[in-house]
């Protein structure tokens, strides 16, 4: 994935080597602190490798350790245990001002006593870059974030979205090995946030710098990232592309946290040609493809199915798909789609999203008995 760089990053020589070092790697990183008499792990054994030029997200609920992980990459926190590498170099214990990464803070942290251009020039001045080059690069960067006309304004005179872009320019102008973004869009309203998501992707493509993006917003992480790590309780639950994480959640937490997922209790009853037959609800059979070898007959498990993968209909489907009968308890008409809640017995409810493809009436009304079906490849076993 070659990226066209408009600013000729300092690392362009390394870019030609066949297998560049990963931009960032964390090896067995722990961050612990004492709370009273017990030790709390904010980050508990994280192993991560982030490639050059990648848009990588750390996704998780608040308190999951994603911000602490990022702060250890930036150099604001030292890991209690483990190694942090930037471009292959061990930087564990190296102070933030000696690391070739820059950060965009959630509060932006723009210097209030400097104007926009001075804010952006701050890092270059500390690096003793020549005056006319600072001027050129600041102008170029302000043009990239479309704030050239605001160079002489104070940060307080700008809107939230503009301040955000100044913070971005202030970090990017240094052409860092990686840019760290700590929930950068959190303070913006929905419309502006969506616009900035597109903007961030554009800028990342143009400069070709590795972006590490911390967010609790799964939609943001899915739409923007090349890869993402879902974090919980200080550890990485799953690492993969957005499609992998969404389509094949590895743990119950991931299935729950990302999008809406149906979790159905079941018992393994047998194996037919590599497809497990799982008994769910009151005797219905679900098919699960490619289940791990550890599953044997009689194993209790949960399986996950995304609501949009399920077909809803009145006729009994064939034996080649998972099928369960249920009663509709709720229908929600949303224009483009209709959401159904279906009681399948055994105290379990399944959510189904159905696209409204034709102008025909809804498939079924509340109280109707329907068949739900989905292909084996759309349900995944969770043993936890």
């Amino acid at each position: 994935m070659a990226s066209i760089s408009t600013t000729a990053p300092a690392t362009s020589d390394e870019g030609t080597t066949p297998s560049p070092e990963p931009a960032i790697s964390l090896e067995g990183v722990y961050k612990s602190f004492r709370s009273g008499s017990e030790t709390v792990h904010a980050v508990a054994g994280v192993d991560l490798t982030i490639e050059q030029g990648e848009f990588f997200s750390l996704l998780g609920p608040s308190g999951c350790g994603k911000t602490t992980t990022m702060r250890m990459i930036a150099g604001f926190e030292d890991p209690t245990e483990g190694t942090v590498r930037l471009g292959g170099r061990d930087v564990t214990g190296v102070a933030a001002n000696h690391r070739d990464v820059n950060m965009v803070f959630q509060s932006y942290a723009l210097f209030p006593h400097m104007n926009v251009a001075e804010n952006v020039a701050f890092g270059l001045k500390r690096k003793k870059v020549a005056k006319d080059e600072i001027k050129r690069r600041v102008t170029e960067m302000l043009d990239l974030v479309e704030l050239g006309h605001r160079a002489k304004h104070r940060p307080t005179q700008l809107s939230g979205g503009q301040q955000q872009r100044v913070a971005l320019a202030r970090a990017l102008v240094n052409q860092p090995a990686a840019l760290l973004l700590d929930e950068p869009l959190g303070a913006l309203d929905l419309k502006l946030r969506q616009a900035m998501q597109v903007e961030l992707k554009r800028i990342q493509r143009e400069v070709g710098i590795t972006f590490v993006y911390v967010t609790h917003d799964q939609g943001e992480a899915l739409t923007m990232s090349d890869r993402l790590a879902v974090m919980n309780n200080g550890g990485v639950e799953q690492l993969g592309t957005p499609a992998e994480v969404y389509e094949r959640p590895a743990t119950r937490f991931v299935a729950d946290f990302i999008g809406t997922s149906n979790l159905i209790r079941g018992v393994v009853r047998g194996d037919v040609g590599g497809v497990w037959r799982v008994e769910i609800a009151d005797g219905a059979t679900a098919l699960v493809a490619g289940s791990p070898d550890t599953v044997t007959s009689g194993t209790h498990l949960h399986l996950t199915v995304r609501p949009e993968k399920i077909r809803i209909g009145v006729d009994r489907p064939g034996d080649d798909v998972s099928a369960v009968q249920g009663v509709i308890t709720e229908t929600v008409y949303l224009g483009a789609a209709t959401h159904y809640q279906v009681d399948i017995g055994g105290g379990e409810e399944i959510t189904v999203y159905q696209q409204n493809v034709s102008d025909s009436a809804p498939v079924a009304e509340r109280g109707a008995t329907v068949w739900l079906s989905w292909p084996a490849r759309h349900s995944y076993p969770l043993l936890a």
Partner: protein
Amino acid sequence: MRNRKLTPYVLVLPAWTWLALFFVIPIGGMLSLSLTTGNVITGFQQTFEVGNYVNAIGTYWEQILRSLFYGGCATLVCIALGYPMAYWIAFKGGAYKTTYLLLLLLPFFVSFVLRTISWRFFLSDNGVALGPLKDLGLLPEGFAVLNTAPAVILGLAYNFLPFMVLPIYAVLERMDPHLVEASHDLYANRFRAFFHVILPVSLPGVFAGVLMTFIPTSADYVNAAVLGGTDNTMIGNVIRTQYLVNNNYPIAASITFVLMGLLLIGIFSYARALGTERVMEVHTS
């Protein structure tokens, strides 16, 4: 009177009344008093005698300059001591910030005059501080601090230190800690982070602290009277003597206005030098 347009005026009335009663009327009275002639027995006549001002400056210019000099020195001592204290409490105080602030203010529960007098014992020629040093031969026998200019400046700085610490502390405490992190992130070491970010952002606090120490120290008379002896009289002592001993109200009032005028000129030029926008702006994250 159910006119909605009048409501704001009615609401602002108490403030205006307060200002009129305790600011405009006294100042006006003083101004008129400074332009009278006569004495306390025959009474003062409003003669618009500008000669009082000429007289005041001509006779007491030395004390006026000395007051501004002492006030300025005391203010500098307050910045030198107060800024590190405020910095330390705001950034390193942790859970004990309020305790440290209380410790700072604790001596001020004792009367101002009493505190100043206690410095007399502390600084006396063979007292707690100088006595042992003289016994050890570290200081010559004739060495004295009491009744010298440094004693007055020291007393002033001591008495007004919290007025410097508190406004600086308030600004530092409110500062977004991410600003300091951002400066480190942008390759600034601790030294540069302080001089390029922390200090400039805290300037409004320093400005407020300077106002709150320079004005009262320049006009103070207790420290000069208690610690300064006869050769270090400040303008406050002169005003006090003219009012309370000589009953020469016109001259006392005109000295007061001269001092006030000089302080205002000083403060405005100081604000200009720092940049009014920067000083008046209250920076929040």
